[in-house]
């Protein structure tokens, strides 16, 4: 974790870096990606939403989070996160940016 001393927790960095890399995210996939406790990620997402950093919307039963475009420090925050992400191991960067968002037909064999 690069920004933990500033952000105060590893989960804060996980959430922000994940959303920076993929534009949006939900608690289960972030927790699964970082192999960490779901409730910690959920709490952090909620904190960022209450603080105006993130906004959420529901898609089916999933609550999707994105950056709040009206957050006044968004540009600066993203710059900081981009820099932090560039210090991650290349493999981790690629994995974070790997993002399947296109639809998958139900029942399609792998």
């Amino acid at each position, binding site marked *: 974790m690069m920004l933990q001393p500033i952000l105060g927790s590893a989960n804060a960095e996980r959430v922000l870096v994940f959303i920076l890399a993929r534009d949006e995210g939900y608690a289960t996939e972030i927790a699964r990606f970082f192999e960490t406790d779901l409730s910690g990620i959920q709490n952090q997402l909620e904190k960022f939403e*209450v*603080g*105006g950093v993130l906004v959420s919307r529901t898609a089916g039963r999933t609550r999707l989070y994105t950056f709040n*475009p*009206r957050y*006044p*420090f*968004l*540009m600066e925050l993203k710059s900081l996160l981009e820099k932090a992400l560039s210090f991650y191991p290349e493999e981790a960067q690629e994995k974070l940016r790997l993002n399947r968002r296109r639809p998958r037909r139900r029942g399609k064999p792998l």
Partner: protein
Amino acid sequence: MKSIQEMTQAELCAFVQSHLREKGINVVLSGGAAVSIYTANKYVSHDLDLINLYSVSRRVILDAMKQIGFIAEGRYYKHPASRFLVEFPPGPLAIGAEPVKQVSEITCSTGILRVISPTDCVKDRLAAYYHWGDQQCLVQAILVAQDQSIDIQEIQRWSEVEGKLAEFEHIRVKLVSDRR
């Protein structure tokens, strides 16, 4: 002084703000309630968004609100005698990426109401329209522009800073037509 039940939205807001100021808590009204006040309730919002300028803790706000009879329910504060809900979104007081530098003051019988200016109110609504395509917020911006004196050049400058000059040009005529 009027009872809380009899207070208009602006009077209630001024009352709450004045009480909080005495406790060292500085808040400014923004959001839909500012639209209600600037349009004489052509648009009605029952939420009072009091921006918590200097991130005073929830505990301090809770204690101060309790003293005037408000009860916390989740993010909101309710008073048994009022239909209005009070919320304290976190600061800083900003419209888009820029801080708000000037705040309007309206004197009410219940205290002084501190509210974002009509021009900033239009920008605040336009931010929701620009970033989320919220058509209701565009309508609210137009209502404020019709009823209040606004600085259209400033709104244009700000829209450009937000990277939304083309969107502004598209709606400009709606903001400047039918002005009263």
